[in-house]
């Protein structure tokens, strides 16, 4: 028994002494939304070059930024994925910790869909109607500028052309990046169609945010965990329900699910790419310039990521559901990224 302890201690010392060595694998952290695209590039990169396959952690955007901005050195990550743009506060934190120069890469776009099972009516809905169906408090229907507890129980109470069944929507929990983006683009998009609420944005920003981003808690909105596949399965067994999830899941399950037309546009590849579909967000990743040359393969990885094969119009990431940038925008981006131009907010 004692020699086992000895072995254990020996092992720990051995490991600590091995740490002094450098790192030959690119380390990426960050958003779980960018993860599926980042990993597919990493895998190709690992196969096609002599470099090791980059290690990609799915930590969420905020968590990734924290790790990324912790400092410079081989024990910090080289890149961070983000499903939104870096915040000024995060960039300041980076600078304070010695991460002076950060290169921004816009990868493409991701759509968030409002969907139900094939066989149920394919509806056309506006952002305002989505807001009315899901917000905690809604403007009083009598037209006065006041809020009431969300009274709507069925869809046709909001708009007679919508189906008559109960409002029941499966969606992501508040910890999810998809939920953040949905609140920002979907709910807030519908919320600010009311002029008096929109005016609040200037006068009382916190109140504006709490009105626009609060989701009802009376059971009509069902939080379904981070796992979008779960929502997909629930929709197929429950034809009266709707779900909110990323476009790639709709793309992969087009035989059982249909996307609703939002503000007159279907969630299609083209609609998201040209911006006519309203709920879509840009996906980014950020590179630590100080690590270029220190960790092998960063420039080569960026070259692979920026290539036409990867994120071009028909690149392999589009097979995974990424909506690519317009060609001329990609060309400009490629030049600036490969020249390692630092981000300016």
């Amino acid at each position, binding site marked *: *028994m*004692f020699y*086992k*302890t000895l*072995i*254990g201690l020996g*092992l*720990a010392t051995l*490991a*600590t002494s*091995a*740490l002094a060595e450098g*790192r030959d*694998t690119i*380390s990426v*952290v960050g958003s*779980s939304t960018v*993860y*599926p695209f*980042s*990993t*597919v590039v*990493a*895998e*190709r990169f*690992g*196969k096609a070059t002599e470099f*090791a*396959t980059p*290690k*990609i*952690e*799915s*930590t969420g955007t905020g968590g990734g930024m924290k790790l990324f901005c912790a400092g410079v050195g081989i*024990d910090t990550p080289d890149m961070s994925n983000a499903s939104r743009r870096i915040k000024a506060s995060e960039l300041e934190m980076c600078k304070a910790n010695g991460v002076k120069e950060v290169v921004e890469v816009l990868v493409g776009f991701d759509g968030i869909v409002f969907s139900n099972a094939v066989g149920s009516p394919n509806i056309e809905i506006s952002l305002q109607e989505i807001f009315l169906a899901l917000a905690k408090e809604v403007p009083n229907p009598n037209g006065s500028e006041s809020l009431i507890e969300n009274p709507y129980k069925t869809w046709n109470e909001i708009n007679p052309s919508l189906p008559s069944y109960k409002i029941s929507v499966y969606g992501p929990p508040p910890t999810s990046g998809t939920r953040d983006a949905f609140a920002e683009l979907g709910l807030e998009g519908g919320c600010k169609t009311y002029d008096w609420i929109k005016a609040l944005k200037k006068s009382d920003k916190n109140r504006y945010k709490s009105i626009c981003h609060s989701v009802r808690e009376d059971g009509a909105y069902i939080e379904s965990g*981070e*796992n*979008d*596949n779960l929502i997909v399965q629930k929709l197929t067994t429950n034809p009266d329900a709707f779900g909110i999830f*990323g476009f*790639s*899941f709709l*793309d*992969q*399950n*087009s*035989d059982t699910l249909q996307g609703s037309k939002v503000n007159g546009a279907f969630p299609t590849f083209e609609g998201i790419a040209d911006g006519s579909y309203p709920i879509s967000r840009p996906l980014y990743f950020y590179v630590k310039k100080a690590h270029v040359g220190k960790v092998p393969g960063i420039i080569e990885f960026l070259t692979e990521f920026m290539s036409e094969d990867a994120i071009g119009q*028909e690149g*392999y990431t589009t*097979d*995974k*559901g990424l909506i690519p940038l317009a060609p001329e925008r990609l060309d400009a981006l490629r030049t600036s990224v490969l020249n390692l131009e630092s981000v300016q907010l």
Partner: protein
Amino acid sequence: MTKQDPQTMPRSAVTEKIELGLAKRHRRENIFRAFGLTAVIFGFILVFFLLFDITSKALPAFHQHWVKVDVNYSEKSLRYAAGDNLADLSYRNTLRKSIYETFPEVKARRDKRQLNGLFSSNAEFAIKEHLIANPDHLGTTQPVWVRVDDDVDVYLKEVEKLGEPLVRIDQKEAQWIKTLVDNGAIEKRFNIEFFTSSDSREPELAGVRGALTGTFLTMIVTLVLSFPLGVAAAVYLEEFAPKNRWTDMIEVNINNLAAVPSIIFGLLGLAVIINLFGMPRSAPLVGGIVLTLMTLPTIIIASRASIKAVPPSIREAAMGLGASRVQTTFSHVLPMAMPGILTGTIIGMAQALGETAPLLMIGMVAFIVDVPSSFTDASTVMPVQIFLWADSPERGFLAKTSAAILVLLGFLFLMNASAAYLRRRFESK
């Protein structure tokens, strides 16, 4: 009961009272038994249902469709010039040309792209390996078997009538697949690669080897650290430590520690082991240390209980014969307590085996393709792999997720079996 004949016995008031209540007591006993039996049956049904569900979902993952491509290794399409390194040739171009030769009627650019999509993205690397292994095939046409794309694989496993569109396969693609099947160019094989390859974003290439190795390494670290530490702590507290306020406090704290949510240990691992001691992120060593913290209380509590259960007469007898306390403990008490200690250890290890939450903080929830070869290499573990696959949009990962759960259950079973074997050996002594 005595042997007297109850018929001839005088019936006392007490007996009569007992007989009156007897039916009720029998009924109570029967009801209780029925409850117990129902509980056991219910449990069995649930376990059976779970296993059945997982197994039936997992089965498709153990087979994979392969497609034969007649690869024309012409020097022209490979862009080969004498003296070139075989690893640097234009294999993608060669593969595409060979595919188009099989379907000469496909002309439009969009159609060609769809056609290429039927083959795994790994195919160009597969034909490259083939040529490197057989350099004399340069300039000839060779049949090479490559994996089909995951969409095609799912289609072939789910479709009822070939040639019909389904899921992500449209009419045109379905017709091509039908042609390939009719020509005998598609084969279903046992998916041995599921066990020999690592994670991939393509379901047809993904396997559990990396995660399984990571689990193995992590569990070794956990066992090597937590077992001796846990047993030593338990022996000291039970056999040597004085009973006072301090040891009481330690006992209470150990019990509390067993109930701490595991993510807290992950935060501790991040703050202390990675940030303070500078150990690498994502390493099985760090994972093992964090899981040790989680497993220790379980092992200590179980070990203390089983040491306490050793009859004092054993200790007294050993001491009476002149053994020291250390001799008594190590030669008599510990061997007798060992079966209980092993049970506690296996429960703790099984908990650790299924953890993902603490590992998130220390970077083991990650996409890692290379199989870890040491305790400091980046790696994931099985539950993380299951979580990552369950979260992937591709259909092909549905079956892989269930298959990975089966592998994890198998791993757990092996661990339990080895513990049971060890227990048996200690018990028979």
